[in-house]
């Protein structure tokens, strides 16, 4: 269990080089992630979400804070999120309506109904959607960071991997490749305790994921993943180090997945007391709010205003797309190749 007291900061000056406006912006993304997921959960129960719904409840803090440490804007840093990094995508500029459309497989979704959930990308804004094969994004992001290096661009790549994902071959091949090539890449390893139903003890024999990275000559730290400011601070350090040409940096964030793998999963394999403890005692959003208010970095009224704005934004996005059509079936055939025309439907479709 992560000790809360050890990492809670009480000093009045805002740490990590953050300003008041940034603190409020971070809060906004935390709240937006949670409210948007709650909305998606409601839509899932109404069968409006077509596939599975994957929540990041309890780990929104590290997602938002790590992405927030990047340089954002057109053609700046690029990250590759996992399914529980909705917060990171929102920070990079993905719009709630895009997420809603993706989950509901709408024709107007970023992938026009071809891919699910947060599997989409906008390289100009700075996010590259994952595929379901965990670990694969490490080599791909190593290649993106390699391009930054080859072109002498002061840009950084950031890639997420879960505790289970670190068991894949591509994770190891990619991390080693990136380390040898000394590319500007930051790896955020999310120790969230559960890979579907598999606990870390059945996934690897090290205690900390950071130990794996050290084997590749990559500096690695372990951070309390539910301490938003600490994650931001560690990521900022790693990002700037990579930007200066010092290569890969690995940050393990200890957090906890408070929902099932997806909404269908009832988590019968998790002790209820454990879930209760993380919800009551170690919620990243609650902790952040307490920290901000206790240190008088912002007033409760300001946070309430943000809450209202975020809810209105999600309501508006939902209303705008909930009744949109799905893509027409025949639109499935095009776009496999750059220039080739769409394949014709099979012959019996015209009988």
């Amino acid at each position: 269990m992560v000790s809360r007291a050890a990492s809670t900061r009480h000093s009045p000056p805002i740490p990590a080089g953050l300003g008041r406006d940034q603190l409020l912006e971070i809060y906004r993304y935390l709240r937006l992630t949670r409210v948007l997921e709650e909305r998606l959960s409601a839509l899932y129960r109404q069968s409006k979400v077509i596939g599975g719904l994957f929540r990041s409840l309890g780990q929104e803090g590290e997602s938002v804070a790590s992405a927030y440490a990047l340089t954002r804007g057109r053609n700046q840093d690029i990250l590759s999120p996992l399914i529980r990094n909705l917060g990171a995508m929102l920070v990079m500029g993905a719009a709630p309506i895009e997420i809603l459309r993706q989950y509901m497989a709408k024709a107007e979704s970023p992938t026009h109904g071809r891919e699910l959930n947060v599997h989409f990308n906008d390289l100009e804004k700075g996010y590259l959607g994952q595929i379901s094969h965990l670990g694969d994004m490490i080599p791909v992001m190593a290649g993106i960071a390699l391009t930054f290096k080859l072109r002498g661009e002061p840009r950084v790549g950031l890639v997420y991997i879960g505790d289970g994902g670190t068991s894949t071959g591509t994770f190891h091949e990619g991390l080693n490749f990136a380390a040898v090539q000394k590319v500007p890449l930051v790896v955020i390893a999310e120790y969230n305790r559960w890979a579907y139903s598999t606990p870390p003890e059945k996934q690897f024999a090290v205690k900390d994921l950071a130990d794996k990275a050290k084997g590749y000559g990559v500096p690695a730290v372990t951070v309390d993943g539910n301490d938003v400011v600490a994650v931001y601070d560690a990521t900022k350090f790693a990002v700037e180090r990579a930007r200066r040409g010092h290569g890969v940096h690995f940050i393990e964030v200890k957090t906890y997945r408070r929902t099932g793998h997806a909404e269908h999963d009832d988590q019968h394999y998790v002790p209820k007391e454990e879930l209760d403890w993380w919800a009551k005692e170690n919620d990243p959003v609650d902790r952040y709010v307490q920290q901000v208010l206790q240190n008088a970095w912002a007033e409760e009224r300001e946070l309430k205003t943000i809450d209202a704005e975020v809810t209105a934004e999600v309501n508006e996005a939902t209303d705008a797309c909930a009744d949109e059509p799905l893509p027409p079936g025949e639109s499935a055939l095009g776009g496999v190749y750059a220039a080739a025309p769409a394949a014709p439907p099979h012959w019996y479709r015209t009988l």
Partner: protein
Amino acid sequence: MADVTYLEALRQGLWEEMERDEHVFILGEDVGAYGGAFKVTDGFTKRFGEQRVIDTPISEAAIVGAAAGAAHMGMRPVAEMQFIDFISCAYDMLTNYVATARYRAGLATPIVVRGPCGGYVRGGPFHSQNPEAAFFHTPGLKIVYPATARDAKGLIKASIRDDDPVIYLEHKWLYRRIKETLPDGEEILTPIGEARLAREGKDLSIVTYGATVWKSLDAADQLAKDDGLAVEVLDLRTLLPMDDAAIMRTVQKTNKVLIVHEDTRTGGVAGEIAARINEQAFAWLDGPIMRVTAHDVPLPYAPTLEDFVLPQTDDIVKAARWLAAY
């Protein structure tokens, strides 16, 4: 005018594209200082520098994955598999990540994955493979397989310029075995997706690709001499997308088809070609579509075993003779 080998033609094509486009770079195992296991990239580091000829760890998935990431950013990476047998280590990356990227996410991934393939060289089970069928089933990939020096050059150049991911299969038995005069100063670009009529005939068609193009041509010579048969040989050059029109043209001309490939039989490319002929030119056939392929075993090492398993010129002669008499 100079006689160049298949390998030298490939090397020239790579070199010319590196000179033409600064976005082109090479990555793979031992490609830099050593110049590649078969010396395809010999001298490249000296000319283009370590930044554009990158020696990598033994990590095919990372090589292909990193190439994909770089391609998303506008680069034109050429990834070498030291032997194409090792492409299976990057199967996930190619089929799940690379091949789907444009369709699912609108991402351009213009990479070339190339490497020496094929048998007849006593390479044993892991240095002799023909992996085309494993990727032939994957929408989003292109597969080219040159048989001549001219196409070795023309197809590598076309593959590098193509906006889609291309698997470029180069036959190591052909590397230094065949030579061709390629005019100096001519830009050779072989269009992807177009077959080549390697020999004209009227009695029977052989549809083939890779090293068996040469074995089929030898067989055709022999059949002309011994049997008076005029055998047509179609060199596919590109397997994906396949040139259906060229296949149907030759079927309609000779009405009998023998499909020849070096790869094993079950689930091989020949089965797909036969199905297409059946669907598109059934009425033109005067005999069954027949196959000459490797036997369905891993490729063994001993010369006696390898020669037995792989299709030989004599096999093609006998099969064609049988079909001609049908």
